[in-house]
């Protein structure tokens, strides 16, 4: 049945590998483009923009925390509703923290992971001409843009931007009366709702493409781990985002229509919001880390010139993390008044989720073991990822232990954890990925020298900025505090806050190096060959950048993506698309594969 159905129907729909290609106009080519590579670049530019917005907010947050009450340099440019005379107001501080978290998670890291790498790599690495649904792909991008700008606009409406944290706990977020923010909070909800559509559209595309459009010979266990992680991540997106969407709608009607889903006055349940939010929210953090893990696996193997250690275990670990990710959400709610028996259950499941992460870490170490490690910039970023992710993951163990979490919940220990997994983790992997695939995107190399400088400085300043936050948390410094010196025991810690803030300023300044390197290399960078990293996967078989439609002919895959230093090859790599030597026929039949 299935075979005939495939034969009958595969070609009756547009969008199958290749599709139709004619020379498009400028607008169709660069603005309303349906080419996955262009869409990836569009996502890259917009999400880097939002990364900078989020970063600037972070710098302002740190200014206030390091020097509470001191006028922000250049702060008099801000309207009086935010910072009169440059002095940041508490309501503006809350808005900044909320929007920092929101922009970073939803508009920077998430689109960078799934929007950029998903779009760029899925068709290229599986040997397809484009996504299954190119127009849907375009729609996905063009929904993300208005969502981002609605979010940005909310700063400038009456009452200012949402100030209830990125977690928007009800009732604080459910009624403007509590914060003075009405429209801002509503725009926050609407923006995320639209963004949800964008993400789901993307995920539908990715899953379909990966299932149906793999090149001949590219069986499931020959997929690069990047593809595996994006595949599993797409399922998380698909199943988690709608939960958020439902919750957002309920919160929105609480705000606007007078319903009381989360307002106890009308019988609502504040904890219901938290359950829904974290049922989405925990899978969300794995959405942010799984692609990073895939990218890092690929790059470590490439740098070590050695196959990924334990490929199957790596795949299983991704699946295990994704599955376990659904049954741990309560670890964000240990102190929320949740039934304490549930707390115990969630603690155990949370502990168990460290196991697949352990598998990943040890396999990365195994990959480096007995390698022949070439220290190119992407490898350095990836090593940075591994070393910092370990710290972030281990701090998760403290918080997972319910009694210890009693003390450290909602303190800077959590803030340290967030940034270790998200900056040290996700963002380092993004730096690695952008640097690694820059030639494929733009046809030029980034300056390796400046990348290395950037790596070293970022690593140092990053550690100076975020490591001490663990200590602040252990001293009992709460999160989302506009002015920690209000508490006597925290005022004593002010030197640490200043140290952190100054490190952050240096850290932010360091990012200019990357930004400049990125921009200048567009014109000045060394021209890239098709396969500058001597890598194995399919995207390196085509020119940099690949033409519209990617592949001259659909490639045939002969082996897994990690055949580095294989004895069968003279060189230390053996691309998936190179036919085996012993065969004489130039294009042999694809091996029949049991699927």
């Amino acid at each position: 049945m299935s075979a005939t159905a495939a034969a009958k129907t595969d070609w009756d729909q547009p969008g199958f590998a290749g599709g139709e290609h004619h020379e498009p106009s400028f607008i169709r080519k660069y603005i309303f483009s349906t080419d996955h590579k262009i869409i990836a670049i569009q996502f890259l530019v917009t999400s880097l923009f939002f990364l900078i917005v989020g970063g600037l907010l972070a710098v302002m947050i740190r200014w206030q925390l390091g020097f509470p009450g001191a006028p922000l340099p250049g702060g008099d440019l801000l309207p009086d509703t935010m910072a009169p005379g440059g002095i940041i107001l508490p309501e503006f501080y809350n808005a900044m923290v909320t929007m920092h978290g929101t922009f970073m998670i939803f508009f920077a890291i998430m689109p960078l992971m799934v929007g950029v790498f998903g779009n760029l790599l899925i068709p290229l690495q599986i040997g397809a001409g484009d996504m299954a649904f190119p127009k849907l792909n375009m729609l996905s991008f063009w929904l993300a843009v208005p969502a981002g700008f609605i979010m940005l606009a909310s700063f400038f409406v009456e009452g200012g931007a949402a100030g209830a944290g990125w977690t928007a706990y009800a009732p604080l977020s459910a009624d403007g009366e509590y914060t003075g923010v009405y429209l801002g909070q509503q725009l926050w909800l609407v923006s995320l709702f639209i963004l949800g559509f964008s993400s789901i559209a993307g995920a539908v595309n990715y899953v379909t493409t990966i299932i149906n459009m793999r090149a001949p010979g590219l069986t499931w266990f020959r997929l690069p781990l990047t593809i595996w992680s994006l595949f599993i991540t797409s399922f998380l997106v698909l199943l988690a985002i709608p939960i958020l969407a439902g919750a957002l709608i309920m919160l929105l009607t609480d705000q606007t229509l007078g319903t009381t889903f989360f307002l106890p006055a009308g019988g609502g349940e504040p904890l219901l919001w938290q359950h829904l939010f974290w049922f989405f929210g925990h899978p969300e953090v794995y959405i942010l880390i799984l692609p990073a893990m895939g990218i890092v696996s690929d790059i470590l193997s490439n740098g070590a010139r050695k196959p990924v250690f334990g490929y199957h275990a790596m795949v299983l670990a991704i699946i295990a993390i994704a599955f376990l990710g659904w049954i741990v959400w309560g670890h964000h709610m240990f102190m929320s008044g949740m039934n304490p028996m549930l707390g115990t259950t969630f603690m155990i499941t949370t502990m168990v989720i460290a196991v697949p992460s352990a598998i990943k870490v040890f396999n990365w170490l195994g990959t480096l073991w007995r390698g022949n490690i070439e220290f190119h910039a992407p490898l350095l970023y990836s090593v940075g990822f591994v070393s910092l992710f370990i710290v972030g993951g281990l701090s998760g163990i403290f918080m997972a232990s319910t009694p210890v979490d009693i003390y450290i919940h909602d303190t800077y220990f959590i803030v340290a954890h967030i940034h270790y997994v998200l900056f040290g983790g996700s963002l380092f992997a993004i730096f690695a990925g952008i640097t690694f695939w820059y030639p494929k995107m733009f046809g030029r190399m980034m300056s390796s020298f400046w990348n290395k400088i950037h790596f070293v400085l970022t690593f140092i300043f990053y550690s100076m900025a975020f490591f001490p936050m663990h200590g602040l948390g252990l001293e009992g410094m709460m999160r989302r505090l506009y002015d920690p010196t209000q508490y006597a025991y925290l005022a004593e810690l002010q030197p640490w806050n200043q140290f952190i803030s100054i490190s952050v300023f240096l850290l932010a300044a360091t990012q200019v190096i990357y930004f400049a390197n990125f921009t200048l290399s567009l014109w000045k960078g060394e021209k890239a060959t098709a396969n500058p990293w001597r890598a194995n996967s399919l995207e390196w078989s085509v020119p940099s950048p690949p033409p519209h439609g990617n592949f001259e002919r659909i490639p045939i895959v002969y082996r897994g993506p990690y055949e580095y230093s294989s004895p069968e090859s003279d060189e230390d790599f053996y691309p998936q698309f190179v036919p085996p030597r012993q065969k004489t026929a130039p294009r042999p039949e694809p091996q029949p594969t049991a699927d």
Partner: protein
Amino acid sequence: MNWLLDPSFSTFGPDIDRLYYIILVITGLVFVLTEFLLFYFLFKYRKKEGRKAEYSHGSTKAEVIWTLIPFVIVVAIGLMSVSVWDQIKNPVEFPNPDYEIIVSARQFEWDAIYPGADGELGTEDDFTVLNRIHVPVNEPILVHLEAEDVIHSFFVPDFRLKQDAVPGMTIPVWFEVTEPGEYILGCAELCGIGHYRMDGMIVVLTAEEYREWEAGQIAFHSGERSPDEGDVVASRGDEEDSDETQDTGGP
């Protein structure tokens, strides 16, 4: 930066601290081991001309080992945590308290409601003290935690105690303090623009002092005595208190 915790002053504080140190040691060892291996491998197997990396796809034995060992470790941490957690948070295991109060949080104040002369909460003669919670030392105290508007969080770092106060719910919280003194009470859940200054004080008195204080309060609240400087009366929207609780650090 200090990985050691300040001393704790509640009966369960040391249990939490002990767990913390156990986890610190375990994760510390894991941290040192993994980071050492990482940097050692980077150094040892750095690129050398003419050498080829070992062509190895992994080892099932190694996978099994490094799946099982972390599994055992984390589950052990989990099991060790259960009893401490139950002791602190599971109402079934609470000690029998002689003292019960209601603490009700609202935007940026803490109301401590005492039973009054009849020793019963929820009656006419209950009296309320603003932002200062007086309790006797060495006695289990049961707090019925409530919130009027949004979620707040009752956080006493020195007791290692934290519990969100959720509107619409009454959450039982207990603690027993081991030393008299004044301890900072903070709000650990974002609750609006005044979140950062929603501090209070737990005043821990000896049994005798406490009885005295209670009698004085009852007298005052029933109108038998005029206020003196020690009384902090809850009047809604009252905000002048914040300076008062500032200068007093830990004990």
